[in-house]
Structures are given as C-alpha cells and as structure tokens.
C-alpha cells in the first residue's frame, strides 16, 4: 500500500461517473434515471474536493464549489420528483419511453 494520492481519488470518481452513466442509459424508470444523475454529481464532487486538497490546500475554492453542487443537486431532485409525480398522474406509468406527447 503506497501513499494515497490524487489519482486514487480520481479513479474512484471515474468509476462512480461510469456507473451513473450506465444507470442513466439502461433504466427506464424515471426515478432510476434520477439516481444515476445523483451518482454522476457525486463523482464530480469527489473530483472538486480532491483537487482542492492536493492542488491548492488552504484555498477552499473546490470545497465551496462542491457545496454549491450539493445545493443544486437537492433543488434538482425536488423538481425532478415533482415532475415524475405529474408524469405518473398524466400517463399512469413511470416508464420514460411512454412520454411521447411532445414528439413531433
């Protein structure tokens, strides 16, 4: 076990990002897709905090950026769940493939 460096954290973040991408691509449940988005946002947050700790310690820029990402993710989740409820009420399913009313 060597010294833990920036690359280790970036690899974990890359794996999280890829699983989030896979979840967004394969799930057809709208809330499942939302879970994938949360995974992707978390991976970017790991990147922000790791860069903050290893490239500019004591500057706090990365940590504050991570804080704003958390705020935006909470807002996005609230809106997305409201939209999902509306979707379910109108189409009585949560399968995103059925939302075709806006298709030209």
């Amino acid at each position, binding site marked *: 076990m060597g*010294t833990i460096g920036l690359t280790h954290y970036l690899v974990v973040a890359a794996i999280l990002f890829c*699983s989030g*991408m896979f979840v967004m691509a394969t799930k057809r449940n709208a809330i499942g897709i939302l879970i994938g988005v949360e995974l992707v946002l978390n991976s970017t947050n*790991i990147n922000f905090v790791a860069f903050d700790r290893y*490239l500019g*310690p004591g500057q706090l820029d990365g*940590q504050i950026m991570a804080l704003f990402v*958390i705020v935006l993710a909470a807002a996005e989740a609230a809106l997305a769940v409201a939209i999902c409820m509306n979707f379910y009420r109108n189409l009585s399913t949560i399968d995103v493939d059925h939302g075709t009313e806006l298709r030209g």
Partner: protein
Amino acid sequence: MIGDFQGGAPLNRLRPRGLKHAAQRAVASRGLKHAAQWRRVVTRLVMACVVVLMMTVGAVAADDAATQDMRGVSSAESGSPLEAVMFYLVATGCVVSAIGVCVCKSVVRMAVFLFGALGSVALLYFLLAANFIGAIQLIVYAGGTLILLIFGVMLTSKSPWVRLDASKLEMLGAGAVTLAFLAALWTLLNRTVWPGTHAEAPGTSIAAIGESLLTEYLVPFEVAGVLLMIVMVGAAHLARQDK
C-alpha cells in the same frame, strides 16, 4: 408498459408447467416459496452486514481523527498506512455500492445501494480533510435527497418493487460504451502527472468556509438562495393535485 409491473405474486409465473397433480403443485410452490424467502433473508443479511461494516469503518475513522486532533496532528496526514487502509476500505465500499446500483432491478434496492455510495463518498470527504463537506453530504444527500427519492418511488408506482427492464441489446450497448469510456479515463489518469503536493492538509475550519461564502462568493450564495425558493414554489406547483 403497464404489463411490466410485477408487484403482486410473481411466484405463479415461476411454477413449473409440467406438474399436473395438485399435491405435486402445492409441494413445488411451497419449495419455491421457501427458496424465495431464503433468498430474501440472505439478501437482507448481506445488506445489513454491508451497513454495519461501513458504520464500523466510519466510527474508526472518526476515532482516529479525534485522537490525532488531540495529539495536534492533522487528521489527513499523508502517507500514513492507516490512511491507505481506510482509503481502500471506503473506496471498495463505494465501488461495490455503485455497481449494485447498476445491477439491481428494483428501484428501492437501487436507492439502498445509493445510500451506501453516498455514505462512502462522505467518508472519502473526511479522508480528504473536508470535514464540513462530509457532514453536509450526510445531512443533505443521505438525509434529504435520498428520502425524497424514496417518497417519489412510493408515490409513482402501484408497488414499490416496480421493474422496468431494459432489453439485452440495450444493456450490452450501454455496458460496452461505459467500459470503453472507463478504460479511456483510466489510461488518461495513469498518464497524467499532477503538480500537486502531498503535504499534510490542515482540517478545514467552518469559520473559513463561512467567511469565504459571505465575501468572495457572496453573489453565488445569494443566487442559490433565490434559486432554492423558486424551486420550492415550482415543485409545490408541479406536484399539486389538479381539481
């Protein structure tokens, strides 16, 4: 498709078709029911073990940080073997939870694995000496957003165990693209040399974050406040029951 909901009793579909006598059928169905119950019990045990393991790791990490703080050493001392062990444990938990989110079919299990992933990410923040962000991650993400997601599952399906499966072809395509992207990222990360420092990082003080939010980042801070209010009104409007 509405026919894809498998909330009620999937056991009927599993019953073998060749059996004709009622007694045989009853025995077979009982056996299947037992198997299903055992599988459920084992799954829950495994999940409980994962949660307990993660809580132990978190407690050890917090204890380590506290003792080191008492000795006047930073909690994120670089190069200590304990840090390496903790990192590999937490990173393994994180990756396993993320893969669990990919593999699971039911949304509730995905949410449980997402909880594992969010908790491990919070522990990673603690290892990176970002104490405040770790605490906020636990409170807002694991405490708020995840509960919101689970409420969304409850409100949008006839049964919480909804399954909407993608076809094999879609899974294969998505898996191939994801693995290719991961391999590209991996080679890129291994070839890059970062100009970073491995010196000890002092733990972040909350006062410094607050000061920075109210001086340098004042405008984004206020805009985030306005955005949160607009989102609150908008979500309440969208989720309203039409009369």
